[in-house]
C-alpha cells in the first residue's frame, strides 16, 4: 500500500488544477462576476499545475517514478508527466485566446472560463489512467463540456449544428468504446492495464471477443482523434463551432488520445514487449488508418476556401503522421524510437496548431470572416500576426529548422528503422508533406503578397494574444533548434513499453 505522502506527491498537479477549477467556479458566483479576472486566476492556476509536474520531470531522471496508485488505477509515469504538463499549457493558451472575444461578444465568458480547468483536469486524469473505466470517465469529463462548447454561440445555427453533430458522433463512439471495454472485461476478468497484461500471458491464444473488444476501443479512439475512416464529423464541427472552442477541441483531446493509444495498444492490448502474436495485425490496422488519414486530410485540404475547414483537414492529416509513430512503436528494437517520435510530434503539433488557431480566432473576431481570401494583406495590417501564422504553418508543413521538421524526421526515421520493408510508407509520408506545403502556401501567399480589402487598416493585437502567440512561437523554435525534449520523450517511450530507461 502506498503511503499518503507518495500519493499526495503524485497527485499534486491534479489537486492544484482541481482547486483552481473550483476557485474559478466560486468566482463566477459573485453578484458581479468579472470573467477577465477569473481567466487570470485560471491561467495562473493552470501554470501552477504545470509547474507541479516539475518534481515528476526531475524524478524521471532519478528513477523515482513511475508511481502506481490504487493498484495501478492511476499511473504517474513519464508518459503521463509529459501529457499532464501539455494539458495544463494547452488550457492556458486556450484561455489567453478565448477570453477577449468571448467577453466582448458577451457569450457566457464566465462559464467558458470555469469549464476550461475542468476539461484540463479530465485530460490529466485520462492520460494518467491505468484502468479502462477510469480512462473512460476522465475522457467524458473532457468530452461533455467540449460538446457544449461547440454549441456555445446560442443564437447561431451553425454552432448548434456543430454541437449536435459532435455530440452524436462522440456519444456513439463512447457507447462503442464501452461495449469494447465490456468484452475486454469479460475475457480478461479485469479492466486494470497491468492485470490485463498479466492475464494475457497465461493464455495460449487471444480470445476472439478480446480482439473484437480491442478493435471497438480502437475505433472509438479513432473517432475521438478524427483519424480516417472515422473523421467525417471533424470539418463540420470545426467550421461551425465558435473559434475559441474549435481551438480547444482541435488540440487537447487529440494529444491526450495519442498518449492513451500508446499506453493502451503497445503497453496493454497488443502486449508488444512480451510477444508479437497480435502485433502484426495491429500494425496493418494502424498503417491503413495512417495512410487514409494522410491522403484524405491533405487532398481535401487542397480545395478548401474556409480556413477552419482547412485546419480540420490538416489536423486529420497530422493524426495520420502521428499514427506512423504509433505504428513504428510496434517493432522490437524500435519501440522507444517510435513512441518517442509520436510523442514529440504530437507535442509540436499542439503548439503549432494552437498558434495558428490563435491567429484565426483574432482575425475571425476582428473581421468576422474565415475565408482565406480575407486574409490577404494580413502582413500589412499586422506584421506580428502574419509572422505568427508563417511560423506555425511552416512548422505544421515541416519546414526546417522548425520543430515540425524535426518531428517528421523522427517519425520517418523511426518507421524506417522499425520496418525497412515498409519503405514505401516513408515515401507516402514525404509525398504528403509535399502536398501539404501547397495548401499552407496557399494561405501564406495572400497573407504576404495580397492587398488588404479595406486599405491597410491596422489590426491591433491584444496583449493576451500577443503573449500566447509569442509563447507558442518560442516553443516551436526552441524545440526545433534545441531538441532537448527528445531525451525526455525517449524516457516517456520507455515508460510506455515497460523497458529499461533510455540512453
Amino acid at each position, binding site marked *: 500500500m502506498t503511503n499518503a505522502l507518495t500519493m499526495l506527491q503524485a497527485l499534486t498537479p491534479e489537486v492544484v488544477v482541481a482547486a483552481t477549477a473550483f476557485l474559478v467556479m466560486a468566482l463566477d458566483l459573485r453578484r458581479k462576476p468579472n470573467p477577465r479576472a477569473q481567466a487570470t486566476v485560471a491561467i495562473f492556476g493552470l501554470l501552477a499545475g504545470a509547474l507541479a509536474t516539475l518534481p515528476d520531470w526531475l524524478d524521471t531522471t532519478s528513477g523515482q517514478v513511475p508511481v502506481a496508485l490504487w493498484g495501478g488505477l492511476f499511473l504517474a509515469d513519464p508518459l503521463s508527466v509529459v501529457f499532464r504538463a501539455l494539458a495544463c499549457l494547452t488550457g492556458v493558451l486556450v484561455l489567453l485566446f478565448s477570453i477577449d472575444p468571448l467577453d466582448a461578444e458577451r457569450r457566457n465568458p464566465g462559464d467558458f472560463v470555469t469549464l476550461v480547468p475542468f476539461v484540463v483536469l479530465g485530460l490529466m486524469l485520462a492520460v494518467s489512467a491505468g484502468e479502462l*473505466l477510469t480512462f473512460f470517465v476522465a475522457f467524458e469529463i473532457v468530452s461533455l463540456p467540449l*460538446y457544449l462548447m461547440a454549441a456555445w454561440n446560442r443564437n447561431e445555427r451553425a454552432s448548434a449544428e456543430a*454541437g*449536435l453533430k459532435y455530440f452524436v458522433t462522440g456519444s456513439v463512439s463512447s*457507447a462503442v468504446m464501452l461495449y469494447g471495454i465490456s468484452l475486454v*472485461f*469479460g475475457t480478461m476478468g479485469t479492466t486494470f492495464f497491468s492485470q490485463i497484461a498479466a492475464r494475457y500471458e497465461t493464455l495460449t491464444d487471444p480470445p476472439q471477443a478480446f480482439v473484437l473488444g480491442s478493435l471497438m476501443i480502437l475505433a472509438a479512439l479513432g473517432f475521438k482523434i478524427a483519424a480516417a475512416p472515422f473523421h467525417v464529423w471533424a470539418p463540420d464541427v470545426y467550421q461551425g463551432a465558435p473559434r475559441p472552442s474549435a481551438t480547444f477541441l482541435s488540440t487537447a483531446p487529440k494529444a491526450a488520445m495519442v498518449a492513451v493509444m500508446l499506453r493502451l495498444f503497445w503497453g496493454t492490448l497488443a502486449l508488444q514487449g512480451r510477444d508479437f502474436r497480435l502485433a502484426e495485425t495491429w500494425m496493418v490496422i494502424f498503417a491503413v488508418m495512417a495512410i487514409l488519414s494522410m491522403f484524405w486530410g491533405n487532398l481535401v485540404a487542397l480545395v478548401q476556401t474556409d480556413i477552419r475547414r482547412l485546419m480540420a483537414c490538416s489536423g486529420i492529416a497530422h493524426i495520420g503522421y502521428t499514427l506512423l509513430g504509433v505504428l513504428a512503436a510496434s517493432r522490437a528494437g524500435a519501440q522507444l524510437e517510435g513512441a518517442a517520435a509520436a510523442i514529440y510530434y504530437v507535442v509540436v503539433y499542439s503548439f503549432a496548431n494552437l498558434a495558428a488557431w490563435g491567429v484565426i480566432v483574432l482575425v475571425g473576431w476582428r473581421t468576422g470572416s474565415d475565408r482565406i481570401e480575407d486574409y490577404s494583406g494580413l502582413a500589412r495590417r499586422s506584421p506580428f500576426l502574419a509572422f505568427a501564422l508563417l511560423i506555425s504553418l511552416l512548422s505544421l508543413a515541416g519546414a526546417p529548422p522548425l520543430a515540425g521538421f524535426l518531428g517528421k524526421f523522427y517519425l520517418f526515421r523511426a518507421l524506417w528503422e522499425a520496418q525497412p520493408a515498409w519503405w514505401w510508407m516513408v515515401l507516402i509520408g514525404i509525398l504528403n508533406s509535399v502536398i501539404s506545403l501547397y495548401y499552407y502556401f496557399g494561405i501564406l501567399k495572400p497573407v504576404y503578397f495580397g492587398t488588404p480589402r479595406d486599405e491597410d487598416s491596422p489590426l491591433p493585437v491584444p496583449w493576451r494574444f500577443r503573449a500566447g502567440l509569442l509563447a507558442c512561437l518560442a516553443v516551436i523554435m526552441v524545440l526545433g533548434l534545441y531538441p532537448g525534449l527528445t531525451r525526455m520523450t525517449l524516457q516517456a517511450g520507455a515508460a510506455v513499453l515497460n523497458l529499461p530507461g533510455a540512453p
Partner: protein
Amino acid sequence: MSPIGLNHFLGLGAVLFCLGAYGVLTRRNAIAVLMSLELMFNAVNLNLVAFARFLPNLDGVVLAVFVIAVAAAEAAVGVALVLSIYRNFRHIDLDQVDTMKG
C-alpha cells in the same frame, strides 16, 4: 427448455446494441437519436452485469454503476443540445440540420 447461460445474456446485449445503432443511424429526430443511444448504453450494462454474475466478478456491477452515471450526464447534455437546435432551427429534424458543405 435449455438452461440459460452467459451467452444468452451476451446475445441479448448484442441485439440491443445493434438495435440502438440502427436507431442512431436511421432516426431523423434528435430526441429519438438520444433514445437509441440509451439503448446502446443499456446493452453495455447488460453485458457487464452478466459478466459480474457468471464470471463471477463483482467489478462488473461497479462498472455498470459508473456507466449509468455517465449515461445520465450524457442525456442531460444531449437534451441541452436538442433545445439549442430547436431554438435556432424551430425543429429537430436532423436531415435538415445539415447546412455546412465544404
